[in-house]
């Protein structure tokens, strides 16, 4: 088990190095940050001096090496636009994104598994058909369109919920939270739905398909023949057996909830890291972009590792080192 984890962590580090390299090499093509930083009235001398200061006149490999060296110490340099520590900027923005991702992840998981089970058990019921039809909307409409539609309905027409921002937040020193104020909670509703809807429909359809598959298995028939209750059959026997594929997809989807919060954050002007990244792209703020990408890849790699470890918790057949019995 320990050997497995060590091997996986080593693999993860390799993945991070490669991601970092690809990301960093792309930045050399997105534009010249000097143009944005110095404005119209610049002289060639200014340009050269700044380029030298930032180390942008050095060869690519040297720049990458420096980036790695500093990143390993948690130092991602100064933002070109704000002139502040990138890690400080990220830390300040991260709570907003994580809170949003947490709520939409919860929504996606709860709704997805709940509706998935419902539509699998009542295969031909009216409510199942209605949910399945509506889920097509979630799968096929692009996120930004759903966001705009929600804003139009609930903010513009009905005026129930705010259309942008995070509402009032409470500063806990190391974390700012919107969970503790009414306006903060209200502000969460629309972005969380927008971000979670697609994942929810995806998880729901997956759970439904897997459940239908498992409900046809012999051990479910046998459980029925033993006189077990429907609830026990559905949840204890069937749901557990659907979890391995569901966790795989869900893990990746939760990663992308954080990563693709960019669009939702843009639509709702949500002050999180996604919005920060979009602004950084416009300004060619290389340190911010690089740090953001590294952060997202760390998250993906971490989630994948957790998912792999969850398999062991769910499926005893994978625990090879356990007590071995028959043959």
């Amino acid at each position, binding site marked *: 088990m320990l050997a497995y984890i060590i091997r996986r962590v080593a693999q993860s580090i390799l993945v991070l190095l490669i991601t970092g390299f690809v990301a960093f090499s792309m930045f050399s093509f997105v534009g010249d940050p000097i143009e944005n930083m110095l404005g119209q009235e610049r002289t060639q001398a200014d340009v050269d001096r700044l380029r030298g200061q930032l180390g942008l006149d050095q060869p690519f490999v040297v720049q990458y090496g420096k980036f790695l060296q500093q990143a390993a110490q948690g130092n991602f340099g100064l933002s070109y636009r704000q002139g502040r520590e990138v890690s400080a900027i990220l830390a300040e923005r991260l709570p907003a994104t994580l809170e949003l991702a947490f709520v939409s992840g919860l929504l996606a998981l709860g709704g997805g598994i709940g509706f998935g089970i419902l539509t699998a058990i009542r295969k031909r019921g009216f409510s199942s058909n209605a949910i399945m039809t509506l889920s097509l909307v979630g799968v096929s409409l692009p996120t930004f369109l759903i966001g705009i539609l929600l804003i139009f309905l609930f903010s513009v027409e009905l005026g129930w919920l705010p259309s942008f921002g995070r509402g009032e937040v409470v500063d806990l020193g190391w974390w700012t939270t919107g969970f503790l104020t009414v306006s903060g909670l209200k502000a969460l509703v629309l972005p969380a739905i927008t971000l979670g809807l697609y994942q929810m429909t995806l998880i729901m359809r997956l759970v439904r398909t897997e459940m239908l598959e498992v409900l046809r*298995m*012999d*051990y479910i*028939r*046998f*459980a*029925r*023949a*033993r*006189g*077990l*209750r429907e609830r*026990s059959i559905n949840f*204890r*026997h069937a749901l*557990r*057996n659907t979890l391995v594929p569901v966790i795989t997809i869900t893990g990746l989807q939760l990663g992308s909830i954080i990563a693709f919060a960019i669009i939702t954050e843009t639509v709702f002007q949500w002050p999180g890291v996604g919005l920060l990244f979009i602004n950084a792209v416009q300004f060619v703020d290389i340190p911010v972009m690089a740090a953001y990408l590294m952060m997202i890849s760390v998250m993906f790699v971490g989630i994948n590792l957790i998912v792999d470890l969850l398999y062991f918790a*769910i*499926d*005893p*057949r994978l625990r090879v080192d356990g*007590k*071995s*019995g*028959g*043959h």
Partner: protein
Amino acid sequence: MTQPVLSVRDLVVEIPTRHGILRPVDGVSYDIAAGEILGVVGESGAGKSMTGNAVIGLLDRPARIVSGQVLLKGEPIHHLKGAALRKLRGRRMGMIFQDPLTSLNPLLTVGDQLTETILEHLDLSVKQARERAIAALDEVGIPAARQRIDSYPHEFSGGMRQRVVIALALCAEPELIIADEPTTALDVSVQAQIIALLRRLCRERGVAVMLVTHDMGVIAEAADRVAVMYAGRLAELGPVRDVVTQARHPYTAGLMASTPVASQGQKRLRQIPGAMPRLDAVPAGCAFNPRCERAQSRCAQAPGPTLQTCDDRAACWFPITHEQEAAI
């Protein structure tokens, strides 16, 4: 005579399809007494398993019982649904399935699956249920049951898993066991062990067993009486020895002649010409008449022969008679 544990009376199961109504089980009647093993044989699609599923209420939709009765110790149970049916399953009738590899939930330990069944039906504490589960494993011949109870199904061999399945079916002490091809997925040496186990449990506990199989060898070894099914109907019903050695129905005779017997050397096996009719094309009269060498014009006319209208053993207008019987 004491009351039989299971009585099936004129049971008819129908499946409505787009092309008409199919009858996989058509007017089947038999009894099973306590401590008796009734073997049910027939080809695939003869309605053997369907009969077993109908008894325990596990027919897959759209198949349904349209007429006839299933009586458990005299009480009709064929109309039961929901909680009433659930309380009978496991508690008063158990079922054993064909493939022990797929009939156990891979994610729960053997002990979990046993105790959940015991707790569902018997008023015991968790600790008592666990002791009972260990006793059940012990009874079906799992060595070191106390140590093995927390193992997962994949940690057992195929034969051991079938023993676990039998323990699961028996752990709440039902009066009737329906064993649907319990040995088909096992290799021959293990088959013999499982049959011996079923026989022993049947005798010791006085359980009635309905043993569904297509294997005449298994029937000959295990069953007390045998019911031969053909195209959803009973062709012959009688004590195993009589049916095997002195078949009266031409189909049973053909079935026996096509079963290899080791002591009879390398003679070419006889075969019955043709194949069992599909359920949407069962011929009028006796379902076997187009393939039967004894068939006469009456055989193709409705109503077809049944056990009740013929001689109570074979559903045939012109059953085979045997010299010994003539001599008596």
